[in-house]
């Protein structure tokens, strides 16, 4: 397996959707190719860091304000009838 082939399957590998033979082939490649090992490991870290970052959390006060605005507009929509959105 060449590095470009490894890279092509990287997303499937990280998502755990490969069949066993392909997975074994990739892991064999990882066992001797340091560059691909580093790319794979740091890509995995990239995903984990974003997933755990709580970037763009909706603050409670804004959340309450938005929900109340949404429900008010929904009620106005209901009064006006179905043509208004």
């Amino acid at each position: 397996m060449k590095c470009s082939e490894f890279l092509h399957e990287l997303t499937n590998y990280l998502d755990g959707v490969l069949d066993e033979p392909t997975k074994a082939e990739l892991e064999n490649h990882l066992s001797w190719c340091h560059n691909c090992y580093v790319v794979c490991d740091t890509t995995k870290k990239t995903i984990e860091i974003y997933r755990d970052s709580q970037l763009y959390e909706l603050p409670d006060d804004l959340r309450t304000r938005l929900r109340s605005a949404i429900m008010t507009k929904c009620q106005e929509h209901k009064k006006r009838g179905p043509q208004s959105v």
Partner: protein
Amino acid sequence: MGAIQNKLEEPVSDELKLVQAAKRGDDSAFEELVRRYDRNVFRIAQHITQNREDAEDVVQEAFLKAYGNLAKFQEQSKFYTWLVRIAVNEALMKLRRRKPERTVSLDEDIKTEDDSLPREIADWSPNPEQQYNQAELREILSKTIQGLPPGFRTVFVLRDVEGLSTEETAAALELSVPAVKSRLLRARLQLRERLGRFFQKRESGDGDQ
């Protein structure tokens, strides 16, 4: 494993009950759907628009549109996936308005296969995120994802931040599964490469044993 599976399946039917009640005119059921997904919609919207006010607008407009079109919602798909599709479209529209000089669509940014091949291979320090405080880390992550084309960061946020499956992401974005996979790979590799600047092992041996 079995327990996890049950937990995943349960909210779907619960969600459907809320949708059916909302369709019958029960606004408190719709409000419960808002409560359930407002944080997700906000996160998705801000990842795409990279603007807080736009993200607030998207949350309102997406739920209002969902409310107004609830009768058209086909119950064989998940309400959340349908809502995400509406929210993504609203967010992309905001971007187009803000950057009219650039066409913004999910089909742009298709460059050659080689454009995301790693050029930078250097390893990161262990626990790289611990080199920065929370505020610094958020700034780094936010700046880094801003540099990605909208089509890439949309796929990344749905798959890797919100945890939608590849098929759900494809359905929400009206893309094919291979297109989602290709964008996801390139988004992940580009983010990795850009984050490397902040997280690489330092020459001094910082973080090394």
